[in-house]
């Protein structure tokens, strides 16, 4: 491990060397975009919950696929097709190991978290949710874990129930448990809230649900980039996440499902690759996971995701988790100490996100002024309007972190916020 780069200051040294295998200035050099300027300032990218940046190894893996390996998969007998198929399936294996799924056939490639959730709602949901039944979600869900269930409930005459959260932005467990009843057919819950960063006690929720034989889908889009995810330890039945939020390319994501459930589910979309034989009288569906993968998949996307997983593994999820924990704690403390700043979401267990408002200043104005300083944050409702309503605000400014962010960048954000206050003084 090289230690050539100089530490920026003594203040950052604690985080710089949390582990001899983790050195943030070296990691930053792996991400070409992080060295660019924005509006004449050094880019400070704090919008990782919207999408993460990509390391060189991911960009190269995608280029190499198109330059040397492009072919359609699962059908050709020729060299390239066989090679591309191998690379695609190797990526599936990497995903399986990354989340500790029992079997590789439990890993289904989709377009992203949104498609994964829609897939479950439209297959498992349509088969098991009927009139008068209930689907349980939480008050902190992203629109993509609300609307697919609303569509299902509307179609079936079922009811969407919402588990409430407290003022810190934490799920109220006794209330959650009270909502589990004989009509509850499925539970869909975020592992980490995209809007306020709350880390939900998924294993505990799954235990409560399974005592009543209710399956649980976990929206893991905001968890996978930050913490070690073990689907077997969580015990969940479905786990959905996106490549682009975990340093891989856009347009590809994963649905994990327990094999027994996936086997029993009807297919999602019809087309090539998801069949084993077709006649006009009857079509036999392909085995798992291909039953749920109609049409030519995003092969370069899967290969890019595989490269991202290998990259994260090379850093080590434990190192990432530990470094980010300290970084988010530092940011929380730093921002909370600024007069007029109010943090939205102060859950004891959080990951990746610090959401805030400033007294008398609209988040959109905060975003514009920070942008002039080269600082990218997200402002708005973060596709989670119900949780904004819960806190009685139209929007927040959200700084969201990745393992390549530094304490120095948090300090620049804090300085930017002082500038915002100065403009509006």
């Amino acid at each position, binding site marked *: 491990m090289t230690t050539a780069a100089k530490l920026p200051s003594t203040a950052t040294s604690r985080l710089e060397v949390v582990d001899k295998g983790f050195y943030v200035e070296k990691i930053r050099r792996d991400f070409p975009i992080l060295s660019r300027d924005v*509006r*004449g300032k050094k880019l400070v990218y704090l919008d990782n919950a919207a999408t993460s940046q990509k390391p060189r190894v991911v960009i190269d893996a995608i280029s190499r696929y198109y330059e040397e390996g492009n072919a359609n998969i699962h059908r050709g007998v020729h060299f390239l097709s066989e090679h591309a198929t191998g690379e695609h399936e190797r990526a599936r294996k990497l995903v399986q190991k990354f989340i500790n799924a029992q079997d590789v056939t439990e890993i289904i490639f989709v377009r992203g978290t949104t498609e994964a959730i829609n897939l479950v709602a439209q297959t498992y949901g349509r088969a098991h949710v009927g009139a008068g039944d209930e689907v349980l979600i939480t008050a902190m869900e992203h629109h993509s874990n609300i609307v697919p269930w609303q569509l299902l409930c509307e179609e079936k005459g079922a009811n969407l129930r919402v588990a409430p959260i407290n003022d810190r932005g934490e799920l109220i467990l006794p209330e959650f448990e009270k909502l589990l009843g004989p009509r509850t057919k499925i539970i869909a819950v975020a592992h980490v809230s995209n809007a306020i960063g709350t880390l939900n006690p998924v294993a505990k929720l799954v235990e409560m649900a399974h005592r009543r034989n209710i399956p649980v889908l976990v929206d893991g889009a905001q968890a996978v980039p930050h913490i070690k995810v073990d689907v077997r330890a969580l015990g969940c039945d479905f786990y959905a996440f996106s490549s682009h939020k975990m340093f891989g390319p856009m347009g590809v994501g994963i649905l994990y499902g327990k094999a027994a459930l996936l086997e029993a589910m009807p297919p999602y979309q019809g087309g090539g690759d998801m069949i084993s034989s077709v006649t006009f009288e009857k079509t036999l569906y392909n085995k798992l996971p291909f039953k749920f993968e109609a049409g030519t998949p995003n092969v370069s996307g899967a290969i890019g995701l595989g490269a991202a997983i290998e990259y994260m593994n090379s850093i080590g999820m434990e190192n990432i988790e530990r470094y980010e924990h300290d970084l988010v704690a530092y940011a929380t403390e730093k921002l909370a100490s600024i007069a007029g700043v109010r943090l939205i979401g102060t859950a004891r267990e959080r990951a990746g996100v610090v959401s805030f408002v400033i007294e*008398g*200043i*609209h*988040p*959109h*104005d905060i975003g*514009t*002024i920070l942008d*002039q300083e080269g600082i990218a944050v997200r*402002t*708005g*409702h973060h596709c989670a*309007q119900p949780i*904004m309503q819960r806190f009685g605000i*139209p*929007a927040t400014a959200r700084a969201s972190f990745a393992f390549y962010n530094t304490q120095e960048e948090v300090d620049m954000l804090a300085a930017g916020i002082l500038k915002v206050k100065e*403009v*509006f003084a």
Partner: protein
Amino acid sequence: MADLRDLYQEVILEHSKAPRNFRELAGANQHAEGYNPLCGDHFTVYLNVEGDSIRDITFQGSGCAISKASASMMTQALKGKSKAEAQRLFETFHKLVTTGETNGDRPELGKLAVFSGVSEFPVRVKCATLAWHTLQAALEGKQDKVSTE
């Protein structure tokens, strides 16, 4: 590089902190709601229209400094104007915030000229025009909520 002070001019900041005509209008005979789903800005514009004339105009709601100041200054500019004059002023204002051009410093813009800096910040054009789109809907008697998206 665009200068923040071009966008956040003193007049704009002042109106955003103390918006004029910021209330529900008793006796309003037309009103409409406008919404920017991107940032959650939400305004209602109330009108008292007699024949062709805007006798009174107020607004309520929440939004960023740009959208609120624009709404506030719009109500000041349009009180007593005809519907056709309001429509023409919107067109001139729209050109101002999208291109920065004032068409040879059109005098009818008056104080609204402070919004010329918005053209340097394309994502903020919707903020500056939300109240105006809402006004248009109110004048046309549209019942659906206007959206900038």
